[in-house]
């Protein structure tokens, strides 16, 4: 069962995770959820990811195009824009700095 601190930790990285999941190419909402779930540790649900996709596309970090779906209503495909790729790059650099620093701390003060 997820703890409150666990939820906070995930919340902090959800944007980076979504941008990262789209680095390999465009995806529609449910496909993106499955990509995130496939990582094992990132079980982000639709109430988190879909509003985030809406915000990121409004901010110009993603472009959206609609294509017909064999399963029902048309799918909305999300793709990183140049601004989205730039955001991902800077977030990734920041993330690496952060994880390196925390790893270092855990190494020094570990049990």
């Amino acid at each position, binding site marked *: 069962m997820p703890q409150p601190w666990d939820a906070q930790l995930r919340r902090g990285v959800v944007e980076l995770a979504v941008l990262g999941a789209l680095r390999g190419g465009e995806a529609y909402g449910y496909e993106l959820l499955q990509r995130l779930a496939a990582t094992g540790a990132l079980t982000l649900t639709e109430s988190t990811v879909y509003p*985030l996709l809406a915000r990121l596309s409004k901010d110009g970090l993603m472009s959206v195009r609609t294509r017909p779906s064999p*399963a029902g209503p048309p799918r909305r495909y999300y793709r990183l824009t140049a601004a989205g790729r730039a955001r991902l790059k800077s977030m990734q650099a920041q993330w690496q700095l952060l994880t390196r620093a925390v790893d270092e701390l855990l190494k020094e003060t570990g049990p």
Partner: protein
Amino acid sequence: MNRPKIDEAAQRRIDEHLDAIEQALGAGGMTRAERHQIAEDVDAQIHEMLATRLGDRTAMLEDVQAVLGELDPPEAYAESEASTPTPPAAAPAYEGPTRVSRLAVVGAVWAPLSLIAGFLSLFQFKMTPVQPGTEPPGPAWWQILLIAVVLVPGLLAPIGATLCGVVAMGSVRGSPHWARLRLTGRSSDRRCRRGGS
């Protein structure tokens, strides 16, 4: 994967779910277009999950209920990250050489001189008769020094200190640190209006 046929009651249940999501997002201040976009994504997901489960079979109410049971409840969207307002961007950290305006300090030191000058002006000057053929007694050297150091700047202090203060405030307002202070002030105002601490 084929498009699943959906029973009328089941379709109504899906619509109710999507309406509830849009309502929850609306309460969070999201625009209509964004709410619609999110509802479309959820709708597409529901249909894909039904198609994966049922194949060609018509989806009945219980099938839809089972799928919706695996999804987040509509109220979860009200708490989502994107439906909460984005915090204001942090102002850049102040990187100036000093946190105190030198002009403000000069003004603060200069202003009390007017009080001292006012105090000194209360003293009465004693008139001494001068004998013909003798030099009139002028002020002593320390009196001249006192006039130069205290009296002249003291008389100019009300104007000078005010000018220093105005110029110093102008430069403080233009500094990045001031922008950060203003943001902090606005956050406090919002907390007060909400009745928070």
